[in-house]
Every structure is written in structure tokens, then in C-alpha cells.
């Protein structure tokens, strides 16, 4: 099956609009889906051959006031990659977890949860710390998080009044 046939099959069997599926290159295409349908769509894709979950990640479109969750699935038999994308609102971001479909998704979702503050309903690790130990700021990968401002507040600049550079002769001694 080549890429066009696969796209046509998905369009027919899952009733997706033609403009929601786009090619990226000969081995890769992307599909956009409403977030209420995401579990059905991912289960369907797993059944037609896209059974390897390669990556779950998020993109923060701060100007459009939304998060985009991206699921990267691979089919080894069809030799195709699909990026499944869905939008969730930036206020109170929530989406259903896929750990029942792919158990290994636990850590990908945990990662996104920690960096973006998105809750995955059903994942036991929401809100726990994985990479960022003792982190007290907002989720760091969000676009409205300013690392410079955060570090200036967290680690205020000190004045070293009694600090004096040593003379070169002293250093050599």
C-alpha cells in the first residue's frame, strides 16, 4: 500500500475531512482530529498497523491560546509515519491518557505534564516530579515562561562589597 492509498483508507473509514490530512514527505503525513475523538482514532490507527508509539509531545501556540498535543505513530509494515495532532484549550488543559493503549506512554505523558502543565486524565503521575527536582516556577516549556526573569527572581544578584582582585604578584606566590 502506498501513502495515497493509506490516506484514502483512513479518510473513508474514519470520516476525516480531506483538508485535515496533509503529506509531509513520501514516508510521513499528519492528521488533525478533534480531542473528543482522539482515543477512538488512536485505537483505530493501532489496529490498522500504526502500533508503535514513537513520541508524545506538545506545542504551545500561545497566540492562538491553545496547546497542540502531537502523537507520533509508526507502522513498520506499511513503512509510514503519522503525526496525529489535536488541540486543547490553554485554560485548564486536560486530555485523556493513552496508557491503556500503550503502557509505555506513561513516561511520555509524564514528561509533557511536567514541562507544559497538561493533565492526562488516567495517568497516575500527574503533578509528580520526574526531571525537575524541587521546581517551584510555572511549567518551563510554556512560551510565556521567561527563564531570565525567573532566574533573576530566584537567584538575586549580590553585591560583593569586600571583594578585591588579587594582584598578579600575590597569585604567583
Amino acid at each position: 500500500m502506498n501513502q495515497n492509498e493509506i490516506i484514502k483508507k483512513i479518510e473513508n473509514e474514519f470520516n476525516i475531512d480531506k483538508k485535515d490530512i496533509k503529506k509531509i514527505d513520501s514516508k510521513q503525513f499528519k492528521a488533525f482530529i478533534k480531542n473528543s475523538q482522539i482515543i477512538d482514532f488512536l485505537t483505530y490507527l493501532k489496529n490498522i498497523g500504526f502500533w508503535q508509539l514513537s513520541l508524545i509531545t506538545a506545542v504551545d501556540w500561545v497566540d492562538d491560546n491553545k496547546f497542540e498535543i502531537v502523537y507520533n505513530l509508526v507502522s513498520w509494515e506499511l513503512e509510514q509515519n503519522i503525526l496525529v495532532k489535536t488541540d486543547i484549550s490553554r485554560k485548564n488543559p486536560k486530555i485523556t491518557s493513552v496508557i491503556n493503549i500503550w503502557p509505555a506512554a506513561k513516561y511520555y505523558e509524564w514528561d509533557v505534564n511536567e514541562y507544559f502543565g497538561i493533565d492526562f486524565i488516567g495517568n497516575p503521575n500527574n503533578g509528580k516530579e520526574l526531571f525537575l527536582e524541587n521546581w517551584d516556577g510555572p511549567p518551563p516549556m510554556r512560551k510565556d515562561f521567561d527563564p531570565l526573569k525567573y532566574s533573576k527572581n530566584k537567584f538575586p544578584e549580590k553585591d560583593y562589597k569586600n571583594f578585591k582582585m588579587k594582584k598578579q604578584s600575590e597569585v604567583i606566590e
Partner: protein
Amino acid sequence: MKEVKLFHGPNHPGMHGNFSVHLTVDGDTVKKAKPNPGMLHRGFEKLMERRLWLNNIALIPRVCVPEPDLNEAVYSMAVEKIQNLEIPERAKYIRVLMMELARISVHMMSIGGIGGPTGVYTAPNWALADRDLILDIFEKITGHRVYHMYIVPGGVRQDIDEKTFRFIENTIRDIEKRLKDYKEIIFESPIIHKRLKGTAPLTKEQALNWGVTGPGLRSTGEKYDVRKQFPYFVYDKLDFDIPVADKSDAFTRLYLKYLEVKQSIKIIKQVINKIPKGKVRLKLTGTALKWKIKKGEAYGKVESSRGEFGYYVVSDGGRSPYRVQVRGASYPQGLYGIEAGLPETRLEDVAIWLDTMGVCAPEIDR
């Protein structure tokens, strides 16, 4: 018996990099394991959003320390996909050459590295000496030994001349001659046989459920390699085999790496014979520091020494990437694999499990 909590790493001779595992042990048997990453987190993904497209080339080799060329190659691949750019044929061959040299150097390190947790201390010294010869090649080509910053979107930085090709050929032949010594000292050593055979088994179901790729998956009998299924650069024009084993334990996983070194040498010889003449770099758009990449997104992936390694790059049409996500090759086995796979192994096998599954701390933390 009472259960005891143990910290395995970061300061442990059997641990690679700043990574630790919290173990709950009952006697010598591991009952529960929890990965504890984050000690090497440097915020690369956030940093990349603030830098220009070309500036990132100097930053990303640090994502995976032992195998830095992959990062440049995979980032460039994703950018070229967004920009719809086909790079020159010669540049593709040179990229393959760099990636296979990197594969040899990192496999050398892990084949010899098994001497650490098992106690065959001659092996790491030999292997590191041979790895150094590969670093000499890198120095000849790029001017740097470890981080090369050589592969850029649009091709590679500079051409390789005929003299350097002869140097590469000689060095590769030299290493090939010595490969049988590794077989004698490692794979025919009674210590290694006793320690590794049957240690740290992995079933096919486990590997597929966790999402493990690379030698870990191939040792269970599944013949999956990104180079064959999703050929990038010129791998579809080169002749090489994918070694597989039927039963996965620490020994077979290590032996597969040894066989892969032989395949890499075969690929490099073909590249040197087949490489066409021509340009090595195409102009992407205008001056390098003013690049504006088209709006769009792409996922580039290659086969690393530990499995599928990918970058997901999103561009909003600006001068720097909007979002970059690194998909480390050891992400599945390094996080979920530890939690699901380590229980019921013995305490002394934990280091061997981590070593042969290829857990690379920097690419998990990013």
C-alpha cells in the same frame, strides 16, 4: 527478609553518565525499581527556541555525548524536510560516512565497556585505543575530535579530499584486522560467558510493548532497522545486512553490536568506492544567520547505536525554531524499561542490564 532501599548511581562504577536508579531490594533480588533522571537536564529544547537555526548546530551535539553526529544529521534532516530541500548526492554520502564512523566509535565504547561491570579490564583499554583512531579521522575531516558541528542544513560544511579518504581506508582496515582480537578477549572469555549468558533476558513482547528499538529489539528476533524500513540519505543504495539474534540476553545484545561494527566497516568501504563528485553544500535561503525556514513541521529520524533517534521540529516561519522535541533512542528502555524490566533481576545484574540495553543519560534528560 526486610526490604532495603538502595541508590544505584550516579556514582557507581557500573553506571553510564549522571543517572540513577532507586532500587528496593530483598536480599539480592530487586523488587522495585524507579528511574531517577534529571541530574543532567540542561533545558536544550528551551534554549533552541531562543537561538537562530544555524546557532543550534553548535548546541545540539551535546544532547547525546558519545554519538554527537546524529543530532546534527537528524536536525538538518528535519529542517530540510520542512524546507523541501534535496541535498547534493556527495553530501549524502559524506553524512553516511560520518554516521557510520560514529556508530563504530560508540559500539567500540560499549563492547569494551562491558569490561567495567564484569571485570575484564583489558577490553576497555583496547577498545578506547581503537575508538581514538576514529576520533583521529574526525579530527582530519572536521577539525574537532568529539563534537564536530560538521553536518548543517543544506549539506556538510566542507569537502573531504582524496588524501583523507585514503587515511580513512587505512584506519578502517587497521581496526578490522584487530576485530578478531576482541572476539578472543571478550566473546570467547569464560568470565564473560559465565556472567552474560542468560543474564538480563528480554522477551519480544516486552521489547515491543516498551517501544524498544535498536540492538535491544533486534536481539529478540525482530528485524527492524530505520536504515532499511525508512531509508534516509543513501542507505537504500548501499549493501549491508541487519544482524539479528533469536534469544535476547546480555551476551547476544553485545554480540550484535560487534557484528554491527563489521557491517559499518562494510558500509564505509562502499561509501569510499562509490562517492560521486560534486558540491557538498546547498544554499538554504540567503545568509546563514538570516535563515527563515518555511512554516511547517517534520519529524526526522535515524538509526542510532541504541535505536530510533528523532527530532520533531516545528517552524512558525521565523528566524529560530518554534519548538524542538528530542526523541532520545534510550527513552523507552531508560524510563519505562527500568520500571518494568528490572524487578526480579539480581542486584549485580543491574549494571549489566543498563549497559547492554544502551541507556544514555544525556538524551533522556535533554
